[in-house]
């Protein structure tokens, strides 16, 4: 199935060069993939995986192992950030 992975701020470097200007990458992932398994597959450093939104909704750390991905999902991830 296809999902869209969006990586922002310092995590931009973990996207292929041609995906960095959109911060988005359309990915083919296996059925049964979870938020945590995708993070592991992409080798994202745990300390940079802070704010995780699945279709705009926050996924708490304790749910990332069990939160399954569905076709068309948009998974967006940020390192620790803040602003005002």
């Amino acid at each position, binding site marked *: 199935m296809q999902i869209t992975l*969006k990586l*922002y*701020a*310092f995590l*931009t470097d973990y996207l292929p060069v041609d995906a960095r*200007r*959109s*911060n988005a990458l359309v990915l083919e992932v296996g059925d049964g993939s979870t938020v945590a398994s995708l993070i592991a597959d992409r080798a994202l450093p745990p*300390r940079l995986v*802070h*704010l995780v*939104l699945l*279709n*705009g*909704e*926050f996924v*708490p750390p304790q749910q990332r192992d069990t939160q399954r991905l569905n076709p068309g999902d*948009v998974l*967006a991830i*940020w*390192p*620790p*950030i*803040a*602003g*005002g």
Partner: protein
Amino acid sequence: MAWTRKILRVNLTQGSCVSEALNMAWAAQYLGQRGLASKYLVSEIDPQVDPLSPGNKIIYATGPLTGTMASTGGRYSVVTKGPLTGVIACSNSGGFFGAELKFAGWDMIIVEGRSPTPVYLHIENERATLVPADDLWGQTVWATEAALKKRHQDPLLRVSSIGRAGENQVLFAAIVNDLHRAAGRSGVGAVMGSKNLKAIAVRGTRGVGNIADPKAFMAAATAGKKVLAENAVTGQGLPTYGTQVLMNVINEMGALPTRNHRDVEFEGARKISAEAMHEKRASDGRTHLVTNQACFGCTIACGRISRIDETHFSVETRPEYWGASGGLEYEAAWALGSANGVDDLEALQFANLLCNEDGMDPISFGATVGAVMELYDLGILSKEEIGLETPFGSAEALCKLAEMTARGEGFGKVIGLGSKRLCAQYGKPELSMTVKGQEFPAYDGRALQGMGLAYATSNRGACHLRGYMVSSEVFGIPVKTDPRETAGKPEMLKAFQDATAVVDSSGLCVFTTFAWTMNDIQPQIQAACEGDWALDSLLQMGERIWNLERDFNLAAGITGKDDTLPPRLLNEPCKTGGSKGMVAEIGKMLPEYYSLRGWTADGVPTAATRSRLGL
């Protein structure tokens, strides 16, 4: 240097500058800056006074940590009755002006009356003089600062001034210091303009002293800096990406107000984000962002310095704008961009430069343009009336309207009234996205329930910096809460509001609280200041300040009915994204909030509350 214990009182009607002792009994109750200046203001003016009349006063106040070695200890606040809102205005600025005022030996300046002709206030340590400024009237902030430095032959002179927007009494005019740091909100610049006071230029060479316990203070300040440096947000995220990193975050959540709050997702958000500011442009191979910049004493350095694209239509024949200058910060980028559907980063930077150059709040300006674009879209405003086409998304309209508003030209005079008065004038008051007359900042109060309550109850009208619930609802600082949930939000908001009032009264920047708790701040205040500044005392002081401001606002004429949001946020659900279907549930939270505050069901502090807080 903790308190200098001196106030400079300037009477513009009489042309006098007099030194007087700081009321130390009040300092013990209100600390400094926001709290102490508010105490002076409410004690000295009639709450019903016309904000633009000589009877209003305007106070420039430092905190006890301003000018010290505490990280971010460079803040000052401007406190007055706000012309945009008709309630208390308290606008906070960084840069270097606040610390310089302290070095000159002054805790605050109280300005009263009105000068018959334009003047500026020149301060050189204990010597303060009012100087004719007829030649500066009509000049921009930037030209004024350059002229004053040249006149006094002092490149280290620190200047806080108004541009043409303040002179023209644009109701959201800002006071700008150090070229691009601003006491931005509520129209404090219009008050300065109404008094014919063009600028305050200060040079202080008295250095730091008067710290209660210097050794303990150095230890506490050093410990605080270590916390900021080691925190991922204040040590890495903010210096690298600035506040602008929020553009994509808030958009992905479906919380980014777009096209005058019609929508909550902006298709052009990525193009005006922090990530875009880091990319090389096709036109010149340069990045928009040049560097970050710190205010006095700051070890975070979140400020943005950018260089506009010289080939952009707004500046291609105007090389005076080609150099590196301030911007874009998130709030400005949102208000000038998403609020109007404009996704042209260079156009936003140009409009932002004009806001800095002529002293306008980009939030209220941009949000008012959003209302104009909606009225144009509905056919209520025409090209003939405005003087140009203003469809949503027009970068050309944004840039032109910024110039017209700053200079008081044509329809710019109407925009300068702010969206509340503008929308009322055209028979559509419900299209004004304001609370108590002040335009919203960059978070939708439907998508973030706690922020909705924060806007409704803010003492200076819609504002994110009186109780920044985004911190919990989005970042998880200090704990993550569900932005869709209302339960628990009143209690958390009260805690945020009271703690923020403490920080705003200290001389420190509220951004430190992304890493610091009150347990990091309290030792710095206690070591610097004489007296009892235990944690409980400080938090009660924050509550005292909040209620002092509330009492003033009630006396000025607001009621609990003003603690609400525009009908669009209460009745029109978010259309898309993670917040789809949501409206602001203020009614579920406000009664509990009033109860926690010790207020009546009508939002009035009870006699018991006033007594408990020493009001």
